Structures are given as C-alpha cells and as structure tokens.
C-alpha cells in the first residue's frame, strides 16, 4: 500500500503526464529532495523555488492566468501567513473579473499537528482556508483519497487549497489504488535511493483511472447512534474509536470524513444528523472561530428540531501556539482519549 506522500506523488505524475501540469514548484520541491515529505520526488516538472511564499503563490496565479495548471507548495502551512492576501487574490479573481479569468491552480501544504512540530510545524488552517471564498479546500485522510482529490484538484478550473495532514503523510491506508503494486515493489519503483540521486529515475506504476469528487464527503464508518464529522489527522482517530465502540457493543457511530471543506457536503452531514439526532464535530484547530462552529451553527439553524441532544465540538485549545513538550502538545491538541470521551458523552447524553 502506498503511503500518502507516495499517493500524492503518483497523482502529480499523472498530472504532469496527462492533465497538463507543467510546473510543480516550491521550496525544496525539486531534486534532489523532492519535498520535505517526499511528495514531489522523481517528478519531471518539479523544481525548487526561492524561499518566498508570496512569490510562490504569485507565480502560481500568474501561471494559471497564462493557461497553465500549476501545482505550488508552501512547505508548511505554518509559513503561509505572509501570503494570505495572495491566496485571497487567487480565490476572488474569477469573481472580481466578472467571470473573465479562471484560476486553475493547486496550492498544497502540510497542515496540522502530530509530528512534534512545536509552534511552527503544527498549525491548522481550516478557519482562514474556509474564508477564502472562491477557493476550494480539500483535506484527505487516506492515501487513496489523497490521490483522488489531487486528480480532481488539478482538473478543477477553480483554485484548490490542498491541505496535507502532516501526521498522515507517511501512513498507509486500507484501500489500494487501481493497479497499485505491493508496498515493497512500489518502494523500489518510486522512492529515491539514499545517497547520490543524480542518476536515479523512478519507474511509475500504471494505475487505473481514479478520482475523488471535490465536495463529496465519505462515510468511513456507518452507524445510526450518533454522527461524528471530521477530517484530516482526526479522521483515522475517529474511525478507530468508532470501530472499537462497535466491537465493544457500545454503539454504532457514523463517522463522516469531510474530505472537502469548501464546498462542504452538507447533504451527507445533514442526512446523517437527521438519522442519528446526535452530532460531534471534530477537528484540531483552536476552538475560537473554528470551522466546526460554522457547521454547528448551520445544524442549529436548519436541524434544531432533529437534534436529540445538543451538538458538540471537539477542537484544539486556544493557546497562542502548540507546545513542543509532548504532554503539552497532547493537552492542547485533541487525541484519541479526547475523542473517546467526547463520543462517550454524546452517546450518554439523555435525549
């Protein structure tokens, strides 16, 4: 099974071979490194940019206007905050120009905590991302979704912000991509060797068609006792807790992995809440002005009388940063035990 970084790499390879991607760039994105998480290793069109996030987004926007389908990387989402205005330009250009200019570009960037990243390798970005109106925002939690969403992001005529959960980039999923070779074979084919890489070239496996539609959530675990809406790093944790609860006979929890934050799949979310009457929104960004709070507000607006118990949020604590010392990080950022507790309370709340 591919890990998420490999899956993204394979999708980008498909992008440069078949979908018209001619520029894949960012800090350390090109050879020899191929990205700090190896997501751009071995690609033909990847190159190293100057250390300048504003220039990176600006270049992507210009390339999109020139008819390209660029894929630009910001090395960590923690370092995107000097270029929010540029992201806004990407997001609003189509609307500002009265529909005259489309902006087919992908900005990908690692997001979230879980790698002992301290204050500047642990940031989440959902709140700002979901306010860049005009921008589509996706965030996969499995390698297959990572592949499928990248294909759709590249094909999109809208700008797409592609959030890669840092903690999941090296994890493997349960689904195989069509035609995907086994783990060892894949490794030998597409992972760069240690040491000198100047003569190395990857051998790309032939994969079947696969994509994941932007705007469509996934029910990663069906259930009717309660609904958990999540994405990114928290998605596999929620899935794992739901499986254990089921195995232990403690309740069947429906886990919705949003996959797309904008435009989000309200149909899937509201259908599930209608069924269960109980809902918990889980993400790892801080709890003040959190995207999950928008979903709670909408739930209250539209489904107040479908709710059996009050809707809940599990999110990060509103400290000025995420601390390095592991017990501090685990305290600030939601962990498995927090999900267990929150789902437990949700199920136990008398209707």
């Amino acid at each position, binding site marked *: 099974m591919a890990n998420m970084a490999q899956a993204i790499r394979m999708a980008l390879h498909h992008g440069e071979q078949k979908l018209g991607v*001619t*520029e894949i760039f960012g800090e350390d994105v090109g050879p020899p490194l191929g990205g700090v998480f190896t997501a751009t290793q071995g690609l033909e069109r990847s*190159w190293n*940019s*100057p250390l*300048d996030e*504003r*220039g990176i*987004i*600006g*270049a*992507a*926007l*210009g*390339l*999109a*206007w*020139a*008819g*390209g389908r*660029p894929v630009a990387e910001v090395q960590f989402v923690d370092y995107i905050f000097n270029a929010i*205005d*540029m992201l806004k*330009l990407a997001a609003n*250009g*189509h*609307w*500002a*120009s*009265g*529909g*005259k*200019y*489309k*902006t*087919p570009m992908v900005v990908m960037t690692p997001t979230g905590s879980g790698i002992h990243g301290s204050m500047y390798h642990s940031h989440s970005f959902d709140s700002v991302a979901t306010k860049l*109106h*005009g921008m*589509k925002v996706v965030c996969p939690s499995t390698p297959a979704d990572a592949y499928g969403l990248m294909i759709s992001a590249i094909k*999109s*005529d*809208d700008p797409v912000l592609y959030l890669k959960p840092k903690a999941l980039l090296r994890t493997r999923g349960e689904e195989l991509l069509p035609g995907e070779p086994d783990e060892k074979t894949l490794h030998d084919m597409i992972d760069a060797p240690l040491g000198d890489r100047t003569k190395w070239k990857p051998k790309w496996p032939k994969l079947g068609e696969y994509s994941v539609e932007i*705007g469509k959530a996934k029910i990663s675990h069906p259930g009717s006792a309660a609904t958990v809406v999540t994405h990114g790093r928290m998605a596999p944790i929620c899935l794992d807790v739901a499986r254990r609860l089921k195995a232990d006979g403690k309740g069947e929890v429906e886990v919705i992995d949003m996959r797309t934050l904008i*435009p*989000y*799949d*309200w*149909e899937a979310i509201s259908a599930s809440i209608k069924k269960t009457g109980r809902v918990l929104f889980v993400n790892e960004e801080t709890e003040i002005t959190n995207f999950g709070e928008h979903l709670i*507000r*909408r739930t*209250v*607006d539209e489904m107040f009388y479908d709710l059996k118990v009050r809707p809940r949020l599990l999110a990060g604590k509103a400290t000025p940063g995420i601390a390095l010392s592991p017990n501090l990080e685990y305290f600030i950022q939601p962990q498995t035990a927090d999900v267990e507790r929150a789902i437990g309370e949700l199920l136990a709340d008398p209707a």
Partner: protein
Amino acid sequence: MPAKTPVKSSAKAAPAASSDPYKKLGAARLLEIHELMVRSRLLEERLIKMSKGGDGFFWIGGPGEEAFNVPLGLHVKKGHGVNHDFLHLHYRSSAIVQALGGKPIDALRQMRSVATDPYSKGRNFVNHYAIPEWNIVPISPTIETQYSTSIGTGIAQARAKTDAITIVNGGDAGSAEGDFHSCLVWANRPVLPLPILIVVVNNGWGISTKEETQHGERHIADWAKVFPDMPGKTIDGNDVVSSWNALDEAFAFIRKNRKPYLLEARCSRLYGHSSSSGANRIPEADCIELLEKNLVSRGLAKADALKKVWAAEAAALDAAHQQVKQEPFPAVETVWQDVFADGLPPSYPTKGGS
C-alpha cells in the same frame, strides 16, 4: 547592454536638425499617440466628474501618465495566451488600456457600476480592468501584488518558444513592498531568467507621502544595480519621445534576451491621489500640453487640428455617458455568479446567517 546608470532625459529636446527625436518618430505616430492621450485624459476627467456628481463613488486613475502609458500600450504584442504580451497593471493604467483599444464607455460602466461593466459586473472600482483577450490580468486594488503575479506569466513565457514578454506596472511608493523584491529575485534566477519589463511609474508621491522621505536609493531604477544581467534606467515619462525610445530599447532587449529590464518613468500626478484627496487639478507638468507644444513648434501639427481631436473625443464621451446612464444596475442575485468556475453548489450557504 543598455547603460546601468540611470539616464535623466530632458523634456526640452532641441527642435532643429534631422536628428530631432520628434521628427524621427514622425507625425503620423505622434498624432496617433496624441489622440490616444487626449482620449485617456478626457476619460479620466469624465470619471472624476462622475465621482463628484454622484454618478459613481470612488475615483482613482492615471491622468498625467499618458505620455508614458500610451507609448507603452503601443509597444505591446496584443492578444491572448503566452505568445502575446501579458500585462499586470494597476489603477493608473487607463491610458495603456486605451492604447490597446479599450473602449471609454466600458470604463464609464465600471465607474457607475452598472450591469454592463465588462470588467467586474459592477463589483470593483473604476480602472480595475480584466481583459483576457489582451492578456490584461485582473487589476487588484492591493498595491504591488501585481509584481508577484507577473512572475507566473513570466515563467510561462520563459518556457515557451516566443518573443512575447510580461509587463508589470506600479508606483514608486509601492516599491517598498516585498512583492517588488520577489519580482526582482525571481526575474533574475540564474536557472530561469524571466522576460519581464518591470516598470515603476514614479510620480513622487504615495498618497500624501513624499518620495524623498522614504527612498534611500537615488533612483528606483538603482535596484537594477544588484543584478549584473538586468539593465535599469530612469526616464522622463512626461515626454512622449523619451518614453517611446526607452520603451523601444527595453522591449527589444527583453524580447531578444529573455531577461528582465527595470524601467522607472517619472510622471506627473495631475489630479492628486484619488477622489479621497479631492481629485482637483494639481499644478504639475502636463504631458499633453508639452506634446502639443512640441508638435506645433516643429510644424508636425497645427494647433487647430489638435483642438479638433479634443472636441471629437469629448463628443464621443458625451454620447457614451448618456448611454451608460440608461443602463441598469446589476441584479442582486448576480453576486452568486462567478464564485466558482463550475457554479454554486446547491447547499452553499447563501442566507448571510440563520
């Protein structure tokens, strides 16, 4: 390679001799330029009037820059796609757009923010163009960001087999922003130099802030001194011929060498910053007056004929303005158009709350 030291050209060219630069450029070209300058000027003056008369709100524009902007527009390889020049402009670029063939009526439409505004559907300020047919990318009110986006079209053209280039245009004060730095750095990368004409129009002001209080460099073009491969030049942008010749040289250099060129043009700001500062006429050198003097004194045009240009352009503008006044404002639901290229999903929140 052109001189690295900024050259201050003089507005007072000696009118005699066959080497006279006006005569060299020739009456036909100069009269074409003159007409476009007059059209642009009258357009801006009309926009100001509309702003003051409640026929629209905020005004910002480029009266005073016509002697540089019209020649710039006439140097553009106009069209769509990487084999044509790209333009990353700002809110004072109207004369460039007019030189390319922009219709004055469309600017009036954007000023009045009527439904027919072809540049933004009544959404953006006047003089914020977006014309894909001519590679004019969307103008944003955010100072200097065009210098960052110019990198992208520059890269596309550096890769393509073409002589087309990217032009970016902005003001002196804005050069303090990091985007100016980004443009310089990316345009001069050894592995992929970019064919960008980096223009700074220096009118001596950023709103109310005087150039000389903020700039430690002698000329903004001196930023070129950092890069051995990038020429830098300062010219008198109030003079048509200085502008024309400098643009000739710069365009030719970039088209051929596929490398950047930094050009600073000193221009007047004839109506102050914007309607916020009153938009009244300022006693600075007027490039059209200057051109007319140069034309008449050389016998390249008659004063009468020049006056007729003004009258004809004014009449056309009157008619256009009358028409725009009849046009409807955009319907409120139109704000949901163009949010996404593939349409608004049915469940997108549109109520503005509960």
